[in-house]
């Protein structure tokens, strides 16, 4: 079990999964790219049609598999391509955060952000700040399935 944890002085390799809705935040990430707005490379984006497509089990799975942070990015409230999807996402993630706290996991490891298709800069800023938060929180040890590969 000790072997699975990194030594405290060695900087750990963060792993962050970002679920981005196709219409706003994924496009915002594209715009960040077009505008060459850099953010940490340990953030990997998974495209979903809407933030409401993100099942809490996907997030728990990511944590079990060793992700240190998960971020859900969708359209701004009121601007959802599907009218109300981001509201569902917001409520579900609020519940999931309480559950994470209950499990003894800092709920800051899960973040919900609204990034529009026109906000490339914001996308990069949000991702950079989330990576910093995760860095400060350190490695996800609590939720990681220690039998998993890493």
């Amino acid at each position, binding site marked *: 079990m000790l072997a699975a944890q990194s030594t405290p002085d060695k900087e750990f390799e963060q792993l962050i999964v970002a679920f981005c809705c196709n219409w706003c935040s994924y496009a915002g990430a594209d715009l960040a790219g*077009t505008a060459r707005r850099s953010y940490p490379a340990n953030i990997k984006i998974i495209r979903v049609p809407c933030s409401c497509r993100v099942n809490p089990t996907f997030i728990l799975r990511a944590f079990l598999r060793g992700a240190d942070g998960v971020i859900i990015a969708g359209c701004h409230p009121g601007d959802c391509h599907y009218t109300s999807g981001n509201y569902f996402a917001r409520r579900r993630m609020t519940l999931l955060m309480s559950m994470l706290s209950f499990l003894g996991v800092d709920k800051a490891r899960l973040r919900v952000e609204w990034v529009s298709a026109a906000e490339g800069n914001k996308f990069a800023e949000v991702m950079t700040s989330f990576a910093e938060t995760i860095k400060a929180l350190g490695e996800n040890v609590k939720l990681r399935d220690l039998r998993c590969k890493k």
Partner: protein
Amino acid sequence: MQKIGVFVCWCGSNIAATVDVARVAESVKSIPGVAFAADYRYMCSEGGQELMQKAIKDYGLSRVVVCSCSPRMHEATFRKAAQAAGLNPYLVEIANIREHCSWVHKDKEVATAKAIALAKAAIAKVKLNTPLVSGESAVVKRALVIGGGIAGLQTALDIAEAGYKVDIVEKTPSIGGKMSQLDKTFPTLDCSACILTPKMVEAATHENITIYTYSEIEKVSGYVGQFEAVIRKKARSVSVDRCSGCGICSEKCPSKKAKSEFDQGLRNRSAIYIPFAQAIPNVPVIDRENCLKFQTGKCGICAKVCPAGAIEYEQEDELVTQKYGAIVLATGFEPIDMAKFGEFNYEYCPDVITSLEFERLTNAAGPTQGHLVRLSDGKKPKSIVFVSCVGSRDTTERGKTYCSKICCMYNAKHAMLVKEKYPDIDVQVFYIDVRTPGKSFDEFYRRAVEEYGVQYTKGMVGKITEEGDHLLVHASDVASGAQLSVPADMVVLATAIKPAADARKLATMLTASIDTNDFFTEAHPKLRPVESPTAGIFLSGVCQGPKDIPETVAQAGAAAVKVLGLLSKDKLLTNPCVATCNEQTCSGCLACEKVCPYGAISAEYKLVNVKGLKERRLIAQVNEALCQGCGACTVACPSGAMDLKGFSNKQIMAEVDAIC
């Protein structure tokens, strides 16, 4: 076993400079199921597509992954190429290694490692892709144009001329928009009304155009080809059919305290009014808030004097429901509110006016019959100062960061018009930059300086104060470094323009994207400038970004062409990535039905095969024509019976597993 082909694009140096593409191709070869992997200079080129098609045939590929730019860019291209080689187009996945990788990371090692991770995720997903077939939906051969200014009129006329029905919905009592308020237009100095009113008449008399003035969009539902809009026709209190437009009612109306919207509040109007002489329809409307009949119950003069008996006090708002294949947004702009710009003394000083007010002041049909006078004392000014960039290119919170684009040109126009009519008036313009790109624009500006002697001073105006009967304009002169205090009898502020106030409400109603300034977002800033990212919604005029009249007309025509392309189709292919219910595991709880924003889920009793036994059960049913594929139901489903094609639980989970 799947046979997966992986194609890694260099995108010239766009990807290859930061990602070791050969290493990406090499490293995925060992993944079970990958039968072919290669890198190529430009996958979207004909050569790249041929490479893919040849590999599909030669290696019998059953799945394809392209590691390239964003799927929002070329997913359709690669799906089409795969389809041409006999593969179902939905068996193709894209790994976005350009926008999400090579363009945002500088270190080649780091970027290559990320590109490999993204490729692996796409491979994991594509293994679980299933062939999908698009359905078909019909196209209603009618278009809706929201906004009856020059943009909306031009779009509607172009669509109508091609033979399709168009409805224009305009919120004010007349079509014409901002252009009808202008006096002259740059750079030709055409009279604005003279070139606009023929278009207004043409639209009003066109057999294919129906105009709803004094009307607003109440609700929009549906999707591309099949929108349904509810239009609220506000009560005009005057019968459009019976009214002859004689105007006796306005003349006799005793309530004359309301500010004329058309004349920017520089003149009062009666409670029953026609906004301007050339208004279409030429039928008055009763402004109920200012009408004595409606406020006190005692009056009714207009009904008594009307020779046609057209006054209808009892009229109520009417709701009209209509189906449309396409919707065009042409909601235009308005000047920003000057309340936050106290230093210009606009609110307290009648001789500090905005440019739109100046337009009305110089217009022969305006409140002063075109005589340029000070609003404070009615005297002719001896000197006028024009201030540009009031609220434009302003990075503080009260202003707009963008350039309003039209102000430099109308400043030159106003200065020139003043000098033309009254050569004795001194005219000075304060500016940050003079921006005059456009056909004959710079020549126009130079004419103002060289021919008419307008004095241009580079420098910002910090404050305007009153000094006796004139104004003092405190400004800096960048050339000399001096602080100036210029006396002026009148100051004209070139206020920034912003999208119409209801743009955000419409964006929400239509699920059309909007940017932080409330301008509607285009599907692609360069290649799809008149389409909204939401299918079937098109953009015309300033609602998309600041534009002058020629640009607005050009864009309005472009939007019309896009609408015609859509309306000329009889059938549209629908998105096959819709929800699907597993009847075996569905418990009929219908949690899915409650969260569906489209009402696409219904309950039905069905005979279901459960462990060899037929059982009659309540099952959730997805209407594929209504489902838009958001996936809200998949998460709400407690039994996991509801899934989304193209983004299934298994597929997304596989991506998570591949990344983590």
